[in-house]
């Protein structure tokens, strides 16, 4: 294996800037998509535990649709196919005037996909509490909305902190798929450095380290938070 080592390439102009900007894009895509995934996922997850057949059906359809199509195919659907399906004016607007089209598409796609996974965790959390608590709340005269707000949700969110952490890490890793529609995030920049300099080993090592640092930091932080949020006498769990 003959290979010209040159670790200096990583701190040279403009490659260092490329890595930094790639890293910032990775973080922006992941955080923005996570906000969408968490809010929508909570709504869908709650819908799947209600007594309404219609809401449960919609929730199930949502989850099954998004879980059973590869993320990359979804990315292409949003980027290439979705604008074609809109009415002409709206389609034109998406194609021509949507601000930061690649970034926005990546965030929407990742967010909607991960929402289906978050929904499963939220549902598992609520179901883990059991029917008794719900009935007790209703018997006390709380409305169904109040039962969720004051009885079910506060407990279930505390139970599902660990699986939600791993969902966040999944979205963080999946943000690399944004490169397929042209977002120059960490992996894309590493690849670009390799193509420009042929220093693939150094470039990919840098990207790998960035991912590992973030993953380990998040895990460490969440361990601390988990310890504080843990409900005594209850083991944490998640949906598989």
């Amino acid at each position: 294996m003959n290979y010209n080592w040159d670790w200096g390439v990583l701190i040279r102009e403009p490659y260092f800037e490329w890595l930094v900007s790639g890293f910032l894009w990775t973080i922006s895509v992941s955080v923005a998509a996570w906000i969408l995934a968490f809010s929508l996922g909570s709504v869908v997850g709650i819908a799947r535990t209600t007594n309404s057949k219609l809401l449960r059906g919609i929730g199930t359809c949502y989850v099954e649709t998004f879980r059973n199509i590869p993320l990359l195919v979804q990315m292409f659907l949003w980027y290439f196919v979705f604008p074609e399906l809109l009415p002409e004016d709206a389609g034109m607007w998406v194609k021509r005037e949507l601000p930061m089209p690649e970034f926005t598409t990546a965030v929407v796609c990742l967010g909607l996909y991960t929402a289906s996974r978050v929904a499963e965790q939220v549902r598992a959390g609520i179901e883990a509490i059991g029917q008794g608590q719900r009935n007790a709340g209703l018997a006390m005269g709380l409305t169904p909305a109040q039962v969720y707000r004051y009885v079910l949700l506060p407990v279930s969110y505390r139970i599902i902190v660990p699986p939600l952490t791993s969902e966040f890490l999944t979205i963080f890793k999946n943000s690399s798929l944004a490169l397929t529609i042209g977002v120059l995030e960490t992996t894309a920049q590493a690849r670009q450095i390799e193509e420009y300099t042929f220093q693939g080993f150094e470039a990919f090592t840098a990207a790998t380290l960035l991912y590992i640092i973030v993953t380990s930091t998040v895990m460490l932080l969440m361990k601390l938070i988990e310890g504080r949020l843990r409900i005594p006498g209850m083991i944490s769990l998640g949906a598989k």
Partner: protein
Amino acid sequence: MFGEFDTSVIFDNLHFLLEGMQTTLILTVIAICGGLVLGTLLALARLAPFKPLSFIAGSYVNFFRSMPLILVIFWFYFLVPHIVGRPVGGFYSVLVAFVMFEAAYYCEIMRAGIQSVRKGQIYAGQALGLTYTQNMRYVVLPQAFRNMVPILMTQAIILFQDTSLVYVVGVKDFLVSADLVANRENRILEMFTTVALVYFVICLSGSLLVRRLQRKFAQ
């Protein structure tokens, strides 16, 4: 819009698309088999009483689990020709990447499965005078595999979806074939919708099957 949805493009290129699907399936099957073998070995190493061995296996798993699959694919696409010393083509690089990557996930599933076998079983095996290997081979692993079947199948479905990521290095799987046709015939809408539908039907049937198995095992 759907008014001009042209299905003939799909049938005209059916043979080409099926070839792509064949590559996808071959990749999935080999990655599952390779991943299972390597994953089982890793899980055994991770649970081994010999500390350095379990540390190495643990680091391997954590390392691969904190990396995006795309980056792993790029890594091996770049590394494999360097290690082998000659160009090997995208398919083999990707295959190595998938086996190594999946092994980390299968290892965790295996570990959970092995740990789900009750301690009493292991003690009983030891009391009968079985060696560590015999105990694993005849007592623990057969039970562990049974407990793991649903999760292993779910992982297989995820892997089947993940193989579409070979797109980034241009290996001609189902998605890439469809993409080629879409661009050649300028039929992006039809091709991508078809691809999504095909994946959806296959994966949904798979997950329904898993759910039935789960119910059967739970009885």
